[in-house]
Structures are given as structure tokens and as C-alpha cells.
């Protein structure tokens, strides 16, 4: 699914965010990406989201070299992904249902299809009773569930999560992780960047550790 071969990313005057990073993730894997702040976790996720391109090496997802994608291909590629961020990235002026439905809506689905699909995933994450609420009316855990619902709504093949539990207490964090494990159990590849070692220990899945832009551990 993900093939990352000697990938480097430098910013400005030779500041390395990633240096010769090599790793691979198979389809259906659940993988933690860990390391201290500045290790290169978020940079790798940015590259995988094609928000940026590597300055060296090859990064392939599903066999496609992300550096070679045209603008339209980037759009098509992103439609196969789901993303979850630490700060939830919900639109404050929209309801829960609208926040989730934004994905099928921009992909051209009808109003009815959008709402039906959004409701299905919201029901799956246990928020069917909050569809008319606005994000500020929800707890942190609920907001992250909405973000997960949004990530799931277009049936992605790969979910990228950047510190998805960073703003949550340990019990809520575990709930979110259990949701991600359920998603993974249905065949979706999940890559979670986190520096929460306790969470990694409790979930007990493959972990790739980064430090100073290098892969230093993979077990």
C-alpha cells in the first residue's frame, strides 16, 4: 500500500524534516508512526496527503508515485483517503451532519445520498443523536468521532491520522483507537502518527519510530 524508499524532505536552507526514510505498509495494516516532536511524523503524513512532495527518494501509494501526480490525479488520489487531525478540523459554522456530508457533497453526490451516507457513518460512530449539533456543542471525544465519520464517509482505502488522540483524555483516546481498530478490521489500512507511548503499548500494533527524520525502529 505505502512504499517509502529513501525519502527526504528539506525545508529552507537544508533543514531536514525527513532524511533517507525507508518503510513500507501493506494493505490492511494498522501501523503507529511514533517519535518525538520534530521527528518527521507530520512531514511524512503531509507527503502522504500530497500536500507536499519529497525532495529526494520515492514515495508510492497503491503503486503510484505521488511526486508524478497531476493536479487532477492528486484530487482523485485524495478521494481514496481519509484523514484525521489532532485539532479535529471541523467547520464551526456547520452542523455535525453537514461536516460529514461535505465530502460526498463536493464529490457530486445528491443531497439525499449525502445525508443518507453521512447519517450511516455517524450512526456507526455513535453520534446519530447529535447530527444537528454544531462542533462547539460537542465534547472533544465527540468532535473526534465526527472527524472519524468524515474520514470514513467516502470508504477510503487508507486512513491517515495525525495525533488523533492528542486532545483527549486516556479513556477517550482508547475509545478512538478502538474505533480505528474496527475500521482497520474491515480492511482499511490505518496509519496513526502519535507520540503517546502508553497508547501504543495498550493497542499493541506494529510501530515505526522516527527520530531526526530517520526510521530508527520498526517492530
Amino acid at each position: 500500500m505505502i512504499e517509502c524508499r529513501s525519502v527526504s524532505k528539506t525545508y529552507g536552507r537544508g533543514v531536514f524534516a525527513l532524511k533517507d526514510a525507508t518503510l513500507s505498509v501493506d494493505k490492511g495494516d494498522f501501523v503507529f508512526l511514533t517519535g518525538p516532536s520534530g521527528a518527521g511524523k507530520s512531514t511524512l503524513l503531509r507527503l502522504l496527503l500530497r500536500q507536499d512532495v519529497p525532495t529526494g527518494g520515492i514515495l508510492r501509494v497503491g503503486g503510484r508515485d505521488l511526486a508524478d501526480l497531476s493536479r487532477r490525479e492528486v484530487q482523485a488520489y485524495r478521494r481514496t483517503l481519509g484523514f484525521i487531525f489532532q485539532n479535529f478540523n471541523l467547520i464551526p459554522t456547520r452542523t455535525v451532519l453537514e461536516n460529514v456530508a461535505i465530502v460526498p457533497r463536493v464529490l457530486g453526490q445528491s443531497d439525499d445520498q449525502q445525508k443518507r451516507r453521512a447519517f450511516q457513518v455517524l450512526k456507526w460512530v455513535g453520534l446519530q443523536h447529535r447530527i444537528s449539533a454544531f462542533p462547539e456543542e460537542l465534547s472533544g471525544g465527540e468532535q473526534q468521532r465526527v472527524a472519524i465519520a468524515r474520514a470514513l464517509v467516502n470508504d477510503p482505502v487508507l486512513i491517515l491520522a495525525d495525533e488523533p488522540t492528542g486532545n483527549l483524555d486516556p479513556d477517550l483516546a482508547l475509545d478512538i483507537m478502538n474505533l480505528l481498530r474496527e475500521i482497520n478490521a474491515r480492511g482499511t489500512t490505518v496509519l496513526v502518527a502519535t507520540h503517546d507511548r502508553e497508547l501504543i503499548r495498550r493497542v499493541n500494533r506494529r510501530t515505526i519510530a522516527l527520530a531526526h527524520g530517520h526510521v530508527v525502529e520498526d517492530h
Partner: protein
Amino acid sequence: MGLVGYAWREGTTSLWRGRRAAAIAMAAITAVVLVAGVFLVLSHNTRRIVSTWSASAEMSIYLADDAEPRDVQTLQDWLQQSGMAQAVEYVSRDEAFARFQRDFPDLADIAGTTADHPFPASFEIHLHPNAAAGPVFDTWVADVRSRPGVADVRLDLEWLGRLQRIVRTIEVAALALIVVLGLAAAFTVASVVRLAAASRADEIEIMRLVGAPLATIRAPFVVEGLLQGTLGALCSLLLLAAGAWVVQRRYGDWLVEVTGLDQLLFLPPTTIAAVLLAGLVLGGLGGLIASRGATRT
């Protein structure tokens, strides 16, 4: 829901949310279109005035006392066939004297007698409305002056020609001013739409991340600009119509008397449509500029 429906709903919602800033952009467009509209109304009516005055313009060709009747007849035929005259009237010496006596009875005694009065025979030419324009007319007048039997030529078209040239110059200057103001208005709309885009930066980023086509992201902003531009143009037309109505009501009689027009006219429907279209284009341009900026990587 198609792209148009989606863009319309998002654009109108965004416009309503940012209605205060949008009012500034619409005011800018209103001001620009109002300036343009005032110039258009003035230009439209000035052209009608020039046309009316040109239609009633006359030219007098005074004949030499010793002009041969054959030369006079040849001249009359030539004038009628020249294409410059709508009507050619021969005024004899006696008829000219009689007219003077009729028009200025107080001066009749100093103008002499039927036998020794100073009034020459003449041709009075009623010119075609557009005769005064262009060098062809000047050449024609010079030709008239050089004809046998012609003593002098008097015409009141030279100042009309000058007036037409002045009107044209003012129109060109106005057009330049409108273009500059129009660009300023477009950039004002762009700034306001950019503000709206900045307030929706998270939403735009999410849309980009889910792979929304650029057209889907940009279209609501373009719609927002289009609406601002059209509403601004509509406001300016309403103001302009109100202004024209007030002028007509207060000064209508005086203007009719001075200009010779039967009434002052507001803009013709095609110009109104063009003004609305200009507002639409200005707004759309502003929205497009802002949306391109908002979606730049």
C-alpha cells in the same frame, strides 16, 4: 444538486454571513457604475441634442450681384445633387429685403429702398443631420465657395462639429475613468471575497484534502462576486433612475426649452442590460481573483 446549485447555495450563504463587508464591495461597484451611468445618460442625451441641432442646421450661400442666371441654375442643380442638402431654397434679392422688413420693422427705414437695398440673393440650404462631421464637409464647403457666382458662405455647423468632437473626447476620457474605477471596484470585490475566503480557510483546506475539484471550491466565491457586482449595478441603476426622475421633474421644462429635445431620456434597455452585465463581470472577476488566491497551493 449540481455544481451551479451548490455554488449558488454556498455563495449566497457566504454573502449573507459577510454582509457588512459585502456592502462595502457593493457600494464600490455602485459608485463606479453610477459614475459610468451618469456619463452614459449625459452622453446619450448630448448625442440627441447634437443630432437635433444638426438636423435643423442651415447654410446660406450668398450670390454675387452680377452672378449669371446660368451659373445660379448650375449651382442650384449641383447643390441638390451633392448629397449634403436635405432642401435647397432660392431667396431672391427682393425676397431677402421683404424678409428683413418683416423681421426687423424698426430698422426698415435705414435698409434702403427696393431699388438700392444691400441684401443679396442667396440659397438657403437645410443640411443633412450628419453633414457637419468629417473633412468631406470642409472640402465640400470650400468647393461651394469657389463656384462661379458665389460671393460668400455662412454656416452654423462649424461649432456643432466642434461640439461633436468635444463630446467624443469627453466620452473617451469617461471611458478611461470608468475602466480605472472598474478595476478598483473589481479589486475591492476581490478583497472582500478574499476576506470571506480567509474566514473559510479551514473549510477550503478540508475540501482540498478530500479531493474536491478546484471548480467546486472556487465556484461559490465566483457566485458571491457575481452577486455583489450585479446587486451593486442594480443599486446604481436605481439611484440613476431616481436622479433622472428628479432632474426631469424639477428642470424638465427648462431643459426642453434650452436643448430643443421633447424630453430627456433615461438609458435605453440595451444600455441598462450592458450596465448590469458590466456589474456582473466586475463582480465575477473579483470573485475569481479571490478564489484563485484562496486555492493557490
